[in-house]
């Protein structure tokens, strides 16, 4: 008796050929991608590449001129309200109610989601703001506001998280706190779409990255696969040689690679050893012909 293979689970986000123009100016052109439950897809591109416009179509703020968006098996914008009940969004702008406290902001949005028995304290604890729970948001620093934005995006325990530049301009401590939260949410099973122009963030957080430029996706793959495909399989070993520096690049796929590495490593004064894989930024430049700035 043969058993049929289990079909792969439907992606939480499934976007097919969406287009959007602001007047005559195309912003998103034939973009397709999918994000599975528990996956983080990094949308990597410079400012104006079409990342935020894509997010706006996913939140229902904009309706695509063409193409289709399915989220959690439902059509956006056709079943917008049902999707939004299971959606968490962290916007690029800090659109919080400044005259209200952190607690009031969270409780207000929890009520809009009709979350029963919502308690803001554990959520504020998660984002490290429990001590500022009853302070007005106008008194929060930029990093604290961004953490509150993340907490707000999580009040309904969303199945899909759309995060638009969540760590943009933050201090390292706040950025790390937010990245940890994103990882925890993906581990919980949420599908996460993360837009960023921070190559390091995309590299460390994302299961896959999509390069987007001028409204089009250039490529989608795992960071490792991209780096392997576009980088050089080699190690660079720099040693001190008298008053100078000996800089050797040793390919890994040649017959004497191991021997050469061993010889280089036996030197007394090794300064640095690096693999020669490409960075995501290098690869982006290769695809887009421009940098991420």
């Amino acid at each position: 008796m043969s058993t049929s293979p289990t079909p792969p689970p439907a992606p939480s986000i499934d976007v097919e050929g969406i287009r959007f123009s602001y007047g005559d100016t195309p912003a998103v052109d034939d973009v397709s991608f999918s994000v599975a439950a528990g996956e983080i897809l990094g949308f990597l591109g410079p400012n104006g590449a079409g990342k935020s416009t894509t997010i706006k179509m996913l939140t229902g703020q904009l309706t695509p001129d063409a193409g289709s968006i399915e989220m959690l098996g439902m059509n956006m914008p056709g079943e917008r309200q049902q999707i939004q009940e299971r959606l968490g969004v962290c916007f690029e702008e800090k659109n919080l109610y400044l005259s209200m406290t952190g607690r009031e902001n969270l409780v207000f949005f929890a009520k809009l989601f009709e979350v029963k028995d919502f308690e803001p304290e554990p959520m504020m604890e998660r984002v490290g703001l429990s001590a500022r729970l009853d302070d007005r948001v106008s008194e929060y620093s930029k990093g604290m506001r961004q953490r509150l934005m993340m907490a707000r995006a999580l009040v309904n325990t969303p199945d899909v998280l759309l995060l638009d530049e969540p760590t943009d301009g933050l201090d390292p401590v706040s950025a790390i706190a937010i990245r940890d939260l994103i990882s925890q949410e993906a581990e919980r099973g949420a599908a996460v779409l993360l837009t960023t122009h921070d190559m390091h963030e995309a590299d460390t957080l994302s299961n896959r990255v999509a390069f987007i430029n001028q409204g089009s996706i250039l490529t989608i793959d795992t960071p490792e696969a991209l780096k392997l495909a576009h980088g050089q399989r080699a190690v660079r070993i720099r040693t001190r040689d008298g008053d100078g520096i000996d800089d050797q690049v040793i390919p890994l796929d040649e017959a004497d690679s191991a021997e050469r590495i061993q010889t280089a490593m036996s030197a007394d004064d090794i300064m640095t050893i690096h693999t020669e894989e490409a960075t995501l930024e290098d690869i982006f430049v290769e695809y887009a012909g421009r940098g991420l700035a």
Partner: protein
Amino acid sequence: MNGSRIGTIMRKDVSEFARNPFFVFITLMVLVAWVAVFWFLPTSVDETIRVGVSQTDLGALLPVGDQTEVAGFALVSFPDEDELRNAVEQGEDGIVAGIDFPPEFVASAAGGGNPRVVLYVPAGIPAEQQTMVEGVIGEAAYALAGIPPPVNPITEAVVLGTDRVGDQVSLQAQMRPLLLIMVLMVETFALSSLIAVEIQQRTVVAVLATPVRVVDFLAAKGIFGIGLAFSEVALLGLLIGAFAVNAPAIVVILLLGSVLVTGFGMIAGSYGRDFMGTLMVAMLFMIPLMIPAFGALFPGSAPTWIQLLPTYGLVEAVVRVSVDGDSWRQIAPALLMLAGWGLAAFATGAFILRRRVAML
């Protein structure tokens, strides 16, 4: 529409309004200051014209004192010409003119002569008052001469409209619609500012990324705006006695007025970029909307262009109910006009706000 979500947004708006020191200040200031101004205004109109005379020897022909205060005219006696002149100059005791009859007036007038009488009038006296006082002098001379005036027509006065002889509208009553409209205007600005801030800080985008629909958001803003404007104008109305006559009609008028200004508040809020920008846009609406209320301070019919302004029906209805005591049937045209303008303004405001939100 989802009532629970609408209620949540409204409670948030009330909270934001109550925490804004500027809104709280102008709201309290308006209530306290305007109520005080209202109750300091005269509640009646003194229609009696007081004329001073320096000669009391005219006997029963020209009696002086309180007993002469009939038909809106009273003579007040002064012992000599200097005191009379001073009283006219200073406007003492409401004296609008002074007549200095010379000692030989009686003898000269009785003998058919032409005695010289000095009439003191203050600068700026209305021409009709001066003519009237001159008539008094002539009447006294005719009476003393024992001959009737040349013509003695029988006059029948026919009053068109409400007869207000002896029952003039007090300044206090005239100010009532103006104060009510000014409160509505203040709340227009408050609502427009709240909406402008919501747009400017893009919090509305976050709200609309939840299951809240645009229609829920618009309904919340509309109900909040109407509630805010109505509660404040009704409170002021209570404090200035606007509900003394036909309270149900006044409630309906103020409710329709609140709908009207909420519509304008949504329009101004949609276009305001910041506090000053919102204030400027709101002022564009507030100034013309207040003109009919100023018009009520002056007698006579309002020009056609004023009658076409959205708040004319509001002012007209308030004046007709609270001053003239008109019935529902009599104020129906004004109410219909107000309701039409109110619905049009509200629908326009909701449409513009919806478009503005969609563009974010």
